[in-house]
């Protein structure tokens, strides 16, 4: 183990044998290592493998493995690009869009939010606090429009949970079938363009569900550099489902505006990926994965995997959403929000929007869909032109991530990275909004 360079064994020997003796041992190890052109740990591993193979050969017999026609067909479908890429798109369409987007974020959210919280939980909590709590401030803390229960709990249970839950269910099914490595290897080339390896397909697609959860899942990436790039992209240019829903709803009737929004955000995504992969120090991403044979998923495996990941959500993500309500409460009680609103009005006017839009940006920090919903209200009231709507949607999408995602970045990447990424997002959001506004008003491309 000393020869292999196991760090804790080196530390142990240094502690127990004394510095002088350890130095002698270390020199001996170095001398031995200098005689080979490969790392000793690798050579030892090779030798071990060779011995293991000898034993295996002595005690086992191997027959010819027959590969079934079905397995060959599946291999063809999932590995041969002209077949695999359409299949990948189908999997994304049905798995992600139909199941997570339409069923999870639509049907289930609708039921939990409108029925359970809208008709039962919130009215009960509101009635309870009105009857039993005298202090308005305390009432507002738990109930009312932004309370910890009426907003924090509702948001995390009724809106985010169904999306994250359906995503992880689908994800576990894909994982259990053995399809994920094939998906990752198909995506590898494209992801290399933005400084990531194919493995990043998982956190990035999850980001379209919940950016906070996705930021946590960047843990699974191989290097620190990749984790940072993925965090930047998630914070800047991957709209989460809550936001996506409102923006799509708002721009759905204006196909050109929608196309423009998607184009600008997509370009920002590529540019941010290219830029961070160019300027962040560290090694380029490498991709290697074992590709297991495809199997029919086992229900118990799928459920166990889903539950393990849901535990992450309950333990690490949900408290952040509850905390966000607390921050809103403090902001409103201390008058801090009024101050920030005044400050935000400056860049908002600069990108050609009415000052009321500042409210949407501020609340976009607490719940990204609140921000978008604020714009939605302005648009319905006829206060935004088509070009203003696009500028606002672009700026809001690129704008800082929600407070929960910010806290997760802080936790996973450290405070410096969290603040730096947020600062960059803020600058990029308003700069893109500014330029887009100039172009749109200059050319009159959108009425």
């Amino acid at each position: 183990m000393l020869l292999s360079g196991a760090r804790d064994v080196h530390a142990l020997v240094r502690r127990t044998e004394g510095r002088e003796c350890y130095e002698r041992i270390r020199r001996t190890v170095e001398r031995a290592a200098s005689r080979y052109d490969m790392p000793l740990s690798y050579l030892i591993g090779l030798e071990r493998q060779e011995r293991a193979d000898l034993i295996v050969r002595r005690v086992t017999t191997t027959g010819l493995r027959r590969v079934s026609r079905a397995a060959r067909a599946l291999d063809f479908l999932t590995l041969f690009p002209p077949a695999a890429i359409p299949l990948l798109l189908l999997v994304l369409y049905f798995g992600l869009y139909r199941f997570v987007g339409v069923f999870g974020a639509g049907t289930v959210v609708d039921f939990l939010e409108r029925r359970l919280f809208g008709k039962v939980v919130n009215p009960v909590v509101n009635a309870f606090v009105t009857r039993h709590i005298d202090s308005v401030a305390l009432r507002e803390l738990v109930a009312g429009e932004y309370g910890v229960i009426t907003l924090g709990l509702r948001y995390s249970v009724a809106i985010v949970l169904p999306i994250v839950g359906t995503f992880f269910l689908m994800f576990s099914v894909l994982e259990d079938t053995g399809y994920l490595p094939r998906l990752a290897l198909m995506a590898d080339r494209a992801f290399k363009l933005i400084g990531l390896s194919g493995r990043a397909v998982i956190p990035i697609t999850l980001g379209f569900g919940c950016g906070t959860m996705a930021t946590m899942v960047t843990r699974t990436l191989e290097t620190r550099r990749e984790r940072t790039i993925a965090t930047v992209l998630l914070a800047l240019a991957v709209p989460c489902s809550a936001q996506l829903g409102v923006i799509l709803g708002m721009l759905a009737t204006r196909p050109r505006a929608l196309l423009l929004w998607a184009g600008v955000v997509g370009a920002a995504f590529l540019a941010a990926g290219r830029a961070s992969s160019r300027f962040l120090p560290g090694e380029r991403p490498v991709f290697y994965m074992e590709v297991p044979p495809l199997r029919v998923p086992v229900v118990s495996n799928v459920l166990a995997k889903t539950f393990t990941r849901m535990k992450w959500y309950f333990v690490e993500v949900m408290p952040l959403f509850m905390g966000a309500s607390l921050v809103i409460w403090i902001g409103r009680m201390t008058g801090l929000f009024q101050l920030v609103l005044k400050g935000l009005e400056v860049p908002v006017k600069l990108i050609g929007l009415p000052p009321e839009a500042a409210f949407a940006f501020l609340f976009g920090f607490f719940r990204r869909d609140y921000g978008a919903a604020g714009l939605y209200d302005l648009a319905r009231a006829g206060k935004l032109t088509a070009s203003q709507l696009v500028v606002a949607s672009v700026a809001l999408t690129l704008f800082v991530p929600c407070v929960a995602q910010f806290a997760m970045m802080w936790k996973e990447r450290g405070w410096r990275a969290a603040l730096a990424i947020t600062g960059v997002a803020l600058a990029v959001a308003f700069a893109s909004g500014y330029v887009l506004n100039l172009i749109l008003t200059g050319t009159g491309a959108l009425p």
Partner: protein
Amino acid sequence: MNGGSGARIFRARRGTISGERPRPTCPLAALRVGERGRVVRVKSASTPLLQKLLAMAVLPGSEVRVDLNFPAFVFEVGNTRVAVDRAIAEQIEVERVTCVEERPRGVKG
């Protein structure tokens, strides 16, 4: 889907002991789909990568068969199937098995 355990007989140190007939080698990235090769060495400076490849049985002496070379390299080695990107495939040095050895001897499968 074959070439698994039989290939292991040629295990290790092949091509490194002097006196053996030297064979032309090429990076795994140069093999065509369906072609076979035997790993001569892995030329990577990264110890973690070497260890990972070792764990996936990509080591000197292993026989590989390329299944796919785009968008990533997928090859069979023993009973395992491994996917790597081009950069890694360039670092795995192999000697061709299919063309050089099997054809003249006319050995089946």
